[in-house]
């Protein structure tokens, strides 16, 4: 493109300013690629066929317990392979800053429902056979330097023991890791507690569980099974809501608020600021070049050509910043995908973000570049040369 040298010349005129502007746009698009991917994960429709596990929880709220008696009834639904249950334990390990999720689970089937967790057969057996047993994710064990055989004291903040004590002591019987790239909810940053001990010892809530995790034989049947389960408990005192694990994890994360809305609001603020920055830069760059633009017009460059040159300059900065920013956010996801998936299942870099980024960069370039481009187009040569 023969005109590229003119655009390149305009960009090189104040190289530091150009680089800083592109850097600002890059940062905005790193945020865009990352936050938009998260927002998409939170706002997309539930895909029932994307998971072979369903979560059955109370229709009222995920903090409402369900009767343990539901276990057998859920198991009896055609197409259900295994049923596990879990409870949110909360609690503090030594200091409130040492947060990690702890779940009392039915040890007998838990690791069959979650085959992505890698644990030895011996440790599995120990977990089932040790009433006070706990298995911890590798990341947690490494963080606190735990070894199998350690006693792990947890101060209960939700659950109190029958004797009024809030100190729960568990025996670490195993350490599990997760298959690389499995992105299973919670990952290896959580610990599981044998439900038997918890059930016997807790002061209240006996005979209930937090929610059920249902492993299905064929994920094509997910939607039917979910409907059947909910129908089974409809009009009971504990109605259920069955969804995928991904939907459940999103619901769990959304305790802090509407994540999708929060992400999109942050992005809107970032891009509004970027529009001001880029618009100001472009206006300043064009203002400084008024005599040069007048010379272009003098030697025969038409108004529309001048408009295009300035617009392409704005587009180059926006698209270059966008491309670098999206590439960085893609790399960020490559490194952090497993960690993010531990909190919200189904989060990954969304290819649709590239299209959105492209459209955003285009709109940004037009809004930021059009006013100075129109100003340059309407420049009166005689006046501009006189100013010089």
């Amino acid at each position: 493109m023969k005109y590229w040298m003119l655009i390149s010349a305009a960009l090189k005129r104040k190289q530091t300013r150009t680089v800083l502007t592109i850097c600002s746009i890059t940062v905005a698009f790193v945020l865009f690629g990352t936050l938009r991917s998260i927002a998409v994960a939170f706002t997309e429709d539930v895909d029932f066929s994307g998971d072979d596990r369903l979560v059955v929880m109370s229709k009222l709220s995920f903090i409402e317990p369900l009767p343990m008696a539901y276990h057998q009834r859920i198991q009896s639904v055609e197409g259900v392979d295994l049923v596990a249950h879990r409870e949110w334990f909360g609690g503090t390990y030594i200091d409130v800053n040492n947060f990690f999720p702890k779940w009392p689970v039915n040890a007998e089937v838990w690791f069959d429902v979650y085959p992505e967790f890698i644990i030895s057969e011996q440790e599995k057996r120990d977990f089932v056979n040790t009433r006070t047993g706990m298995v911890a994710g590798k990341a947690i064990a490494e963080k606190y330097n735990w070894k199998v055989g350690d006693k792990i004291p947890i101060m209960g903040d939700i659950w109190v023991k029958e004797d009024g004590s809030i100190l729960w002591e568990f025996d670490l019987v195993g350490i599990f890791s997760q298959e690389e790239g499995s992105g299973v909810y919670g990952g290896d940053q959580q610990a599981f507690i044998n439900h038997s001990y918890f059930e016997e010892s807790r002061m209240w809530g006996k005979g209930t569980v937090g929610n059920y995790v249902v492993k299905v034989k064929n994920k094509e049947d997910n939607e039917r099974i979910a409907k059947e389960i909910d129908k089974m408990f409809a009009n009971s005192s504990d109605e259920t809501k069955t969804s995928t694990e991904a939907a459940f994890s999103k619901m769990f994360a959304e305790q802090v608020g509407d994540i999708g809305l929060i992400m999109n609001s942050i992005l809107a603020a970032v891009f509004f600021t970027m529009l001001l920055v880029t618009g100001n830069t472009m206006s300043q760059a064009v203002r400084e070049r008024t005599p040069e633009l007048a010379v272009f017009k003098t030697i025969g460059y038409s108004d529309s050509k001048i408009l295009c040159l300035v617009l392409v300059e704005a587009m180059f900065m926006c698209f270059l910043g966008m491309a670098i920013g999206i590439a960085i956010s893609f790399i960020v996801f490559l490194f952090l995908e497993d960690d993010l998936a531990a909190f919200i299942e189904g989060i990954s870099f969304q290819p649709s973000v590239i299209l959105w980024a492209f459209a955003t960069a285009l709109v940004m370039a037009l809004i930021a570049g059009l006013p100075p481009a129109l100003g340059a187009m309407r420049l009166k040569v005689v006046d501009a040369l006189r100013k010089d």
Partner: protein
Amino acid sequence: MSDSLVSVNAVNKIYQRGGEKLVVLDDLNLEVPKGDFLALMGPSGSGKTTLLNLIGGLDTPTSGSVEVDNARLDTLNSRALSRWRASHVGFIFQFYNLLPVLTAFRNVELPLLLTKLSSSQRKEHVETALNIVSLVDRASHKPNELSGGQQQRVAIARALVSDPDILICDEPTGDLDRETSTEILNLLQVLNRDHGKTILMVTHDPMAAEFAKRILHLDKGKLSN
């Protein structure tokens, strides 16, 4: 249709400043034959640059007609005027107006980007123009690496490169010392004499005007010999 290359007929140029009308050119007539080298002199504000702008197709008269090489400039729209300027006229300014980040070669190439010439053809034209102004060896230098005289010669090469009929020079030596001015004026004479370029030059400097074939004085919007 006139035999002159430039024909300015009964031209008025009036600016409205607030409630006041400022008559810059007053019923002005001018004929410039092909191959002429005309110096326009006059005090500041006498309308010299305005007249050059009208002949160069940068401005339009309030009334009257401006005809250059059989084209009625006062009737052309902005787009047509741009096209006309690109092929018929070369401009030389007092302050050179080169793009600081481009080399001399690239600065001279600018008008040719508007043509359909290939890259190699453009290169050939640029080298020819730089050769005329004796700056081939400085082609890869940026303006800040050149002296004032050399920068003006690059500007002249830029004005020449598309082989226009007319060169319009607005105080081409106004920013140069005496010796360099003489070099530039000699170059303009060569372009007029050997390359057949019609030159219209505005100057305050009587010495510079002496290089022209004809000198006209403009005062209060009217021409005199």
